[in-house]
């Protein structure tokens, strides 16, 4: 591989790795949001159960 090919490959790799890192960050954020939604759903269910027992 010539130096020119190496540097060109490196430049394209940088863009690809950055995109991949962004997708990973978004995936981690989505997982957190999913956890938050299920936590809030549990809270609402608990509340409904308490209100159901009271009523």
């Amino acid at each position, binding site marked *: 591989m010539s130096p*020119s090919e190496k*540097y*060109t490959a490196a430049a*394209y790799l*940088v*863009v690809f790795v950055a995109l991949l890192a962004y997708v990973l960050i*978004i995936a981690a954020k989505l997982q957190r*949001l999913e956890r938050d939604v299920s936590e809030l759903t549990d809270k609402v269910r608990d509340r409904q159960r308490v209100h159901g027992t009271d009523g």
Partner: protein
Amino acid sequence: MPGVKAIRLPQLVGLTIAALGAAIALIFFYAPIDANQGLSQKIFYFHVPIAFTSYACFGWGAWKALRYLWKRDERADLESYVAIHQGLIFGSLVLLTGSIWAKISWGVWWAWSDDQLVIFLVLFLFYCAYFMLRYSVDPGPARSNMCAVYALFGVVLVPMSFFAIRISKPFLHPQVFSASHGYAMTGAMFFTFCVALLGMLLLFASLYQLELAGKRLDAHLRELRELLA
């Protein structure tokens, strides 16, 4: 992005993948190898569109900042922030791919004598400071006002960065587009460049919509949590 808003995110991502795929195919199988620079010239097809996209991000962020100051729309503040965040991501890629291209073309990773490089770095650091400002002030109208004014000031650097290449004396940086000579490349190269630029702009639109959706969802969840507390 008024036109983009009507397109759903999966469709936008599909278009982005198609455009970037076509760009890569054109770069490596259609565009001719440059007689002077050889294969390393192919960095141009990603480096320059990424630079133009980062300018578009900062411009879009400034437009949203103006909308916030004008209409007092809180959504515009978040949209401005997300656009500037995207601009910094694309800006980092401009600096990284530019450094690699400089090393193979000029033999150095960075040249302080090149006005284009230095002005782009100033623009990049200016927008880095935007985040320091945003996170050092409590959320609210005061923070939104300050950030909007800062984003509007920063956009002045965009035309300076773009035209620096034309006014700088030592033409170390290649001048591909000029008013007097048109574009200094073949039709095949220009077509490839246009497809790559379209791909990068679509990538910005996709990432912008994705990040915005995440931020809005986050805000709604925070509000819901407060209501349930």
